[in-house]
């Protein structure tokens, strides 16, 4: 931990996730690509779909924190210094962004908001 070598980070993350590492990377990249593809196809962000996705995202952030606490046998009282709150906020934000994007894609696939709101955008 004394020096920060990017390849060490990569090696450590590979050890953390094991066989899931590359599938997870692929999942995240595909998710982002799918999101971008939807944006390009619709040429705008669907506001109703976005609001619902953000609501899901709010919950997703808390699921992220809960997951981290569960796998590290921790409790919320264990948050000590400011760096801990920063870490928790970061985990929440990551969970929220991921859940929002995932929800946006799922809602698009379900046809939610698709075209129905499009005229209002113009």
């Amino acid at each position, binding site marked *: 931990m*004394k020096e*920060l070598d990017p*390849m060490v980070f990569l*090696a450590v993350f590979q*050890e953390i996730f094991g066989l899931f590492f590359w599938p997870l990377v692929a999942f995240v990249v595909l998710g982002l690509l799918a999101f971008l593809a939807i944006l390009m196809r619709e040429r705008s962000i669907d506001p109703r779909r976005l609001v619902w996705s953000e609501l899901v995202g709010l919950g997703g952030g808390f699921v992220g924190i809960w997951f981290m606490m569960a796998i590290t046998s921790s409790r919320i009282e*264990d*948050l*000590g210094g400011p760096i801990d709150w920063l870490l928790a906020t970061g985990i929440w934000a990551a969970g929220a962004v991921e859940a929002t994007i995932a929800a946006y894609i799922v809602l698009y696939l379900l046809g939610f908001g698709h075209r129905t709101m499009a005229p209002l955008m113009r």
Partner: protein
Amino acid sequence: MSRFLTPQGGGPGGLARRQILKLGGALAAAALVGGRAVAAPVDTKARIVIAGAGAAGLAAASRLAQRVSGATITLVDARRDHYYQPGFTLIAAGLKPPSYAVSKTGAYVPRSVEWIEEAVAEFDPVGNKVVTDSGRAVPYDFLVVATGLELNYGAIAGMDRALIGRSGIGSVYAGPDQAAATYEEMSRFADTGGVALFGRPATEMKCAGAPLKYTFITDDTLRQRGMRSKAELIYAAQNQTLFSVPIVSEKVRMLFQDRGVKVAYDHVITAIDPGRKVATYATPKGPVEFGYDFINVIPPMRAPDAVRKSPLPWASGSWAADGWMEVDRSTLQHKRFQNVFGVGDVAGVPKGKTAASVKWQVPVAVDHLIANLSGGTSKAVYTGYTSCPLITRIGQAMLVEFDYENNLTPSFPGLIAPLEELWISWVMKEIALKPTYIAMLRGMA
């Protein structure tokens, strides 16, 4: 490749920013760069023998396999199971099963390395060979000694490894199963209360933070079960300090005071009577007996037999009696046998006998070994860096990092305070440490 020469220090603000930028840059580079710039392997016909396939031996084998071609690299060790020893504390805390710390040695032996599944019985640095327990002589041009150390339970009268997990006796170090048995005894104690004894031997030892961690873990377990008021915790320190680094010792003293842990300074365990549940300590005022309901026995530690009885240990000084190898503390090269290196627990150097020490010792020793065999020179220096995620309760730890000079050497200055009880330090111990360790065995970290 090696950038561990620069000690970190100075003002927190600027460094914190720099550290963040460095971290960001590192992650960005990781995403962009496909591979590490590695120097071309050195061509050699040298015979390199590595005695011991623990953390240090495997890391050395992986590093050497990356850096030489054409050499014969031979690993000698009879143990097929590999133990991730930093995990023992988590097993003894009841958080992980014994299997958490166990894997197969064979999984980490590089393909180009020959593994002789026998123990080293004899070192002959004059004749440049080691002899295995079956009598097989293995000659070498260069030798890396990484045998680890011996837990000398026999030095405590009445103590036996077989007692661990019985009559309130625990011992975190003995192995994964014994760590689990220690949890059973500690957990039973946490349900009933009474007196718990902790402490450490007067010898050099593996991870000197571990006995402290287990005291904190027991305290936390009692608190979680609402039993703290029914228990008395006593920590027997081997001298007048709680940790070899003064600033850390003082912090632990404050934490012990806060948690109500009593400290008996200058107390070294010499005997245990499992029938009476009494431990005897040598003190400046003579022997003292403490009764206990739970005790975490940490035995004296010394170099393994084969090293102790060889010409490799220090001939005089405080490390001579226990047989620690006489190596240069900066290069890990033997002081009398230039083609011999000592890494890991067996090295007679001050401070840490930890996986973190191994992580920083091995690349330095390997660099000097390769410089020796190729007629070059190496400027790599091991500064004594080691690290100890000092658990202060389940869910918090202090990420203590230091060097030979008792300097604190935080990896993330200004971000992760070394003497603060933090969740992030615990998260690192729980999530990142084992993967980093495994990556180290593979020569990737």
